[in-house]
């Protein structure tokens, strides 16, 4: 395996900068997605699967800040949104392989007032049931224990979806190996309705044949951040170092010294695991030292368009969908691109990203950090941030064509996954070769990485200030197997860990500081 050089020579790149003073992965970062939550991409992940290094997992999360108890209809995917995961395997920043997901909603019990209902083995009308409902008539169906068949009677609102792979222009429907529909996993309503939610959610993992697995449904939002402090003009908690972590706090990836504001929230997730041989340009796994090992990936959401020209008049604009949002690296649109250009960025193709160079080369966030903390930052133009948006070492092997400047999440598929015990939240900055920005795992602390990159850590060790928000880990443990995110939090039992509350780290440990 090719060893990625640590921190200073690393890439990271364009990640940050921006007219904003804070960020939250990509939750509601642009006007167009603030208005269109269902099409809002919150995070995009791509990594060599921890438990199967022959495969890559892509995760596209959408629809931010889903309050788990927010019934009765909870959080369906939007039937009118086309969700896509796109992969460039020949370094031209154009999609060579696309996985498209489209959902269909069915209402199985239109007279029932809630999307999901169930209890025990079902509840019948009691002896004193007024006419015309006779005693013994089923009223509440059995608890929901399955996505289809017995145990699924309480799933009034159910979604199924299709997966289409477009490879080199050829479209192929990827179907359930059993021939049954692919069902999206509903939100975790609570223990009475869904008494064994993990078992229910696991049924939403499907094999599509050829080594491909897929999952779609509501899950715990894997992102973590002290959002309130961040958006309060980087007013980080004093107890968390006020934005500059102590060496001890920085070194402990498992302890939070500030509240995870995304704790207790869910998000909708689409995950697909694909053999590496299916996505490289050579059709085979490649050593990390080979240019063929590195791919670029991004996610998009799109909606059907209203066209200037009606059929059959020929349209100048092609395609029946228009892109609402895209995401490769985290936080680019959030903290690099100016508010007046965010929608334009969201709707543009990555291959045209050089048009946003002005935002990258003198990021406002760096100047905010300079102003607030008085820290020295590199002098613009910030070419130290550019490597993240091209194919370059240390992610890509030497000799890999750099390609155009484009916001893609680049992943060297030849780099083996880091075992759990050795995994570092700071990824590549901490010498963890399989972490962001070499792809992105669900556990990577992109907030702290981004702050440091913007402050200049890629330009040299003199710019390493241990910047961070004090949230180093998620509120619940991730899974080590596909789909790797934690299952959705319970609507009845969920907990948001707020400032002042005990159990700052996954419900344990001291209280989260308020200041």
């Amino acid at each position, binding site marked *: 395996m090719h060893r990625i050089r640590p921190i200073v020579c690393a890439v990271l790149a364009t990640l940050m900068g921006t007219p904003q003073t804070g960020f939250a992965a990509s939750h509601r970062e642009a*006007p*167009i997605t603030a208005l269109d939550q269902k099409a809002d991409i919150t995070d995009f992940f791509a990594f060599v699967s921890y438990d199967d290094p022959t495969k890559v997992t892509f995760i596209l999360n959408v629809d931010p800040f889903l309050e788990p108890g927010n019934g009765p209809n909870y959080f369906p995917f939007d039937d009118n949104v086309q969700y896509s995961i796109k992969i460039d395997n020949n370094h031209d920043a154009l999609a060579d392989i696309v996985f498209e997901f489209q959902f269909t909603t069915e209402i199985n019990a239109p007279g029932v007032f809630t999307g999901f209902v169930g209890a025990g083995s079902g509840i019948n009308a009691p002896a004193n049931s007024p006419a015309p409902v006779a005693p013994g008539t089923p009223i509440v169906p059995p608890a929901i224990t399955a996505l289809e068949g017995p145990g699924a009677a309480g799933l009034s609102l159910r979604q199924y979806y299709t997966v289409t792979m477009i490879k080199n222009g050829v479209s192929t429907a990827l179907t359930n190996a059993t021939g049954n529909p692919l069902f999206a996993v509903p939100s975790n309503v609570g223990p009475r309705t869904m008494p064994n939610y993990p078992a229910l959610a696991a049924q939403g993992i499907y094999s599509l044949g050829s080594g491909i697995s897929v999952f779609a449904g509501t899950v715990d939002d894997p992102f973590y951040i002290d959002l309130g402090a961040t958006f309060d003009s980087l007013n980080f908690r004093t107890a968390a170092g006020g934005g500059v972590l102590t060496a001890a706090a920085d070194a402990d990836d498992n302890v939070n010294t500030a509240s995870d504001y995304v704790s207790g929230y869910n998000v909708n997730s689409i995950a697909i695991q694909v053999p590496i041989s299916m996505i490289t340009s050579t059709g085979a796994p490649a050593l990390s030292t080979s240019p063929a090992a590195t791919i670029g990936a991004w996610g998009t959401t799109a*909606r059907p*368009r*209203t*066209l*200037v*020209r*009606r059929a059959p*008049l020929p349209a*100048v*604009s092609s395609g029946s969908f*228009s*892109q609402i949002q895209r995401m490769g690296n985290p936080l680019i649109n959030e903290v690099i691109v100016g*508010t*007046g*250009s*965010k*929608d*334009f960025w969201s*709707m543009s193709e990555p291959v045209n990203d050089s048009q946003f160079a002005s935002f990258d080369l003198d990021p406002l966030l760096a100047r905010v950090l300079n102003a607030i903390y008085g820290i020295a930052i590199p002098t613009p133009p910030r070419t130290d941030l550019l490597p993240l948006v091209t194919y370059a070492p240390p992610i890509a092997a030497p000799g890999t064509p750099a390609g155009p400047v484009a916001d893609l999440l680049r992943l060297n598929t030849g780099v083996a996954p880091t075992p759990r015990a050795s995994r570092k939240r700071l990824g590549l900055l901490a010498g963890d070769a399989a972490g962001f920005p070499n792809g992105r795992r669900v556990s990577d602390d992109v907030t702290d990485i981004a702050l440091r990159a913007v402050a200049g850590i890629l330009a040299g060790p003199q710019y390493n200030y241990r910047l961070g928000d004090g949230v180093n880990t998620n509120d619940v443990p991730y899974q080590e197997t596909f789909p790797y995110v934690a299952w959705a939090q319970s609507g009845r039992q969920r907990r948001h860990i707020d400032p002042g509350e005990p159990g700052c780290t996954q419900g344990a440990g001291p209280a989260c500081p308020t200041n």
Partner: protein
Amino acid sequence: MRFHKQDRPVGLSCCVFGLLTFSAVCPAAPKTAQTYVGQASALCRKGRDVADAAPYLEADAAIDRALELAPGNYDALKLRIVTLLGRRDFTEALKRARELNRKTPDDIAIWGYLVDANMAIGDYAEAERDAQWILDLRRGSTLGFLKAAALREAFGDIEGALEFYAEALLRASANDVQERAWLMTQTARLQLASGNAKRAGELIEGALKLNPESQFAFAALAALKASQGNYADASAIRKQLFEKTPNAHNLYELAGLLEKSGQHAEAETAFRDFETKALAEEDKTFNANRELVFYYADRRQSPSRALTIATRVAELRHDSETLDAYAWALYRSGKFADAQEQIDRALAPGVRDGGYFCHALRIATANRDAAGVKRFEKELSLIGSVCEISK
């Protein structure tokens, strides 16, 4: 109808009331940039309704004041583009719209200015891309439907344009009577072009109920009357319009209707006055050069003068309207092959207009293009139009 300070409903600011009524009902000296921006905005709306440069020039003065008080005021800079468009300085408008668009690409209003400027210049493909971007960026926005409707009309899809104007009307605020009247008049204009005079009449009546001052609606009413052969009423309406907005275009329209109504002496006087007026503004961006081309080509039998003017305009713009006039000046000058080339260019976007088809028919006839003659006779027949222009 004149609005007065006391007419202003309780709760409606002076600025908003002025905007809705095109009037300066609150004469207190404005103090802030935003007040001047509000004034300019109201004047721009008036300019759209009356199709004259004067309100835009007034708006420019207000914008100047706004920018003095707040240099770089974004709304003022945007309105400057509107006044440039209104004064038909399309090149400068396009330049400034592009500049603002580069800074704030997420502002759909600026994309709308780009659509307007590109359409006026004749860059329809670019205009279509801009309009499509609005539709993509802000689904269901009134602006998107408006700009796309204008393009659909330019592409000859009248039914599609009507569809989008209807969508825009559905979204227009019930309180914004000026906008609703304007949209209804646009719809009426297209209904009339489609031969639906009855529906056009209903829409114009509705528009005038909403906005009894609308010169745009009165102009549509004059066109309706003329289409029904009632040239006396049409010319009377046009005369009132000219009295309110004494520009060369209104005078040319009036002169034509006087002629058709049999008032030949008055028509001749009006045409002479038009010539004087139009020549005086020939070199300005807001001019009546198109009318001047037809005036020299058809009325004065001075095709060389027509061609000189048409050639100059065509050097700046290549929209269908400009190319049609250019083609006609070439035809009248006996340059039939060149005329054919230009009328083909004019019709290329797909525009379906009786006037253009009539010119095309005459040019095809001159070129002994039997297929062309057949085609344009059919086109005229399809839109229920008759070519009244003499050979």
